[in-house]
């Protein structure tokens, strides 16, 4: 066959390869979700959401785990967003571009890829022991913040870089100071992108179990937290705990817990996509 036919064939081949790969992923996801729904949906009701954990699978609920996850989310947002976004702004707008700043940039990108358990060990030593916070929500959220701050820094820097330099020039030419330019033009213009990145980082964070087990998220906590210094448990940990119980009824509980966790994750990602589309339409370079 001649070259044209060969090229056409390769084209079609790649197309089909792409479609098959996509479908494999989608089918696996569909099978997983179907399985979970089948085992867990029956157990999912209002009682399940508001009950405390118990030895009896019919009575056990995820209230404390859910509250723990929400508390963790709020605390982590407060710590990681303030530190991460500020650091991102400082590194992008204030430091001089040179050898040292390049090293810093590479360093931070590397931190994004460090396994989360390592952060757990760091948190154990620094927050639990040295700062004496024990196994509290505060220590856990500080550890989780350490985990996602590098991601937020990278996202913030990329978002700021994406704002056209002409906007900065125009602001400076009108007599704005550096901070006025950042606060009144650069941040508003990049806020969509930054918020999207933050939500994605948080969606990843709420599924993290390993580092938090290391810093003291407990497995059996019969009360919802009422202050940052309280003991706590989280959804992923509660789910893991239930799957390791011998009673087969607990599997249904675990599946129901997974449905709740998936729902929260999908919801956060959905909000992210919605906001991103909304902002992209508004800002046209």
């Amino acid at each position, binding site marked *: 066959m001649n070259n044209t036919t060969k090229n056409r064939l390769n084209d079609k081949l790649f197309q089909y390869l792409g479609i098959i790969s996509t479908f494999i992923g989608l089918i696996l996801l569909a099978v997983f979700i179907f399985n979970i729904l089948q085992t867990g949906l029956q157990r999912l009701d209002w009682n399940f959401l508001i009950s405390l954990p118990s030895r009896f699978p019919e009575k056990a609920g995820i209230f404390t785990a859910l509250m723990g996850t929400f508390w963790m989310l709020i605390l982590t947002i407060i710590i990681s967003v303030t530190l991460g976004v500020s650091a991102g702004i400082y590194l992008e707008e204030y430091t001089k571009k040179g050898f040292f700043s390049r090293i810093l940039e590479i360093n931070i990108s590397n931190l994004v890829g460090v396994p989360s358990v390592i952060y757990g060990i760091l948190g154990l030593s620094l927050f639990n022991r040295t700062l004496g916070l024990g196994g509290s929500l505060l220590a856990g959220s500080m550890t989780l913040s350490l985990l996602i701050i590098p991601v937020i820094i990278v996202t913030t820097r990329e978002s700021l870089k994406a704002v056209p330099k002409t906007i900065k020039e125009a602001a400076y030419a*009108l*007599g704005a100071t550096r901070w006025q330019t950042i606060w009144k033009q650069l941040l508003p213009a990049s806020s969509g992108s930054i918020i999207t990145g933050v939500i994605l980082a948080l969606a990843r964070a709420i599924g993290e179990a390993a580092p938090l087990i290391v810093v003291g998220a407990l497995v059996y906590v019969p009360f919802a937290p009422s202050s940052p210094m309280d003991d706590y448990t989280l959804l992923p940990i509660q789910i893991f705990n239930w799957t390791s119980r011998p009673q087969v009824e607990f599997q249904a509980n675990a599946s129901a817990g997974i449905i709740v966790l998936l729902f929260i994750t999908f919801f956060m990602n959905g909000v992210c996509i919605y906001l991103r589309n909304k902002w992209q339409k508004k800002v046209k370079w």
Partner: protein
Amino acid sequence: MGKAIEYYSIIITSLMNQLIANNVNVWYGDNHALQDVSMVIEPYQVTALIGPSGCGKSTFLRLFNRMNDYIDNFRMDGEISIDDTNIYNGSINTEELRKKVGMVFQKPNPFPSSIYENVAFGLRIQGIHKKSELDEKVETSLKKAVLWDEVKDSLKKSAFSLSGGQQQRLCIARTLAVEPQVLLMDEPASALDPVSTSKLENLIFELKKSYTIVIVTHNMQQAGRISDRTAFFYMGKLIEYDTTKKMFLKPTNIQTQNYITGRFG
């Protein structure tokens, strides 16, 4: 009588803003972008800077509001002054300088907000927040830029909903709002269609009654149409600087003549 008026006008001009460059050299790293340039730009006139690409005219323009400071490897020596004040003196407040010396860029660059907010930005950063005051100044500036009639009913609309020519006039209104005395324009019409260009040129003609205007342009006919004095730059050097009439009809330097007649460029 004529002589008396001439004398009188000299006194007035000497109270206004002259832009003075004295033996100015500029380097970007090893690139010697401007070589020993000296010239005096007179107030209430349009001075055009012409020359082929890369000859240093934009660099020279940006010296007067210190926008070159943001470029890495920028180095300058010589003196740049506005009247008696050397603006590269360490104690100069660059924000105040830029309020006095405004700039309009080649490609219209409105902020991604409403038309009103674009013009109000320069006022807000000075601490003016009272709505009535802002409303009044926004209207005045848009009128000066001959844009008011076209946008007065849609001030809250996005700046990007305007056409290219309107966006450029919005950028001019934005610059005029901070009440500068000098306007630096870096090829303001190069991204515009001929109709918008001619509207812009008429606007510049009106503005020169109240502002000192320096305009970089690639378009020689434009320089001929609107400027009072013209400076020809080539390869970083100031080749000739004279009244536009003389430059175009009877230039002293052979290079000037070659550029103006289109022999190169």
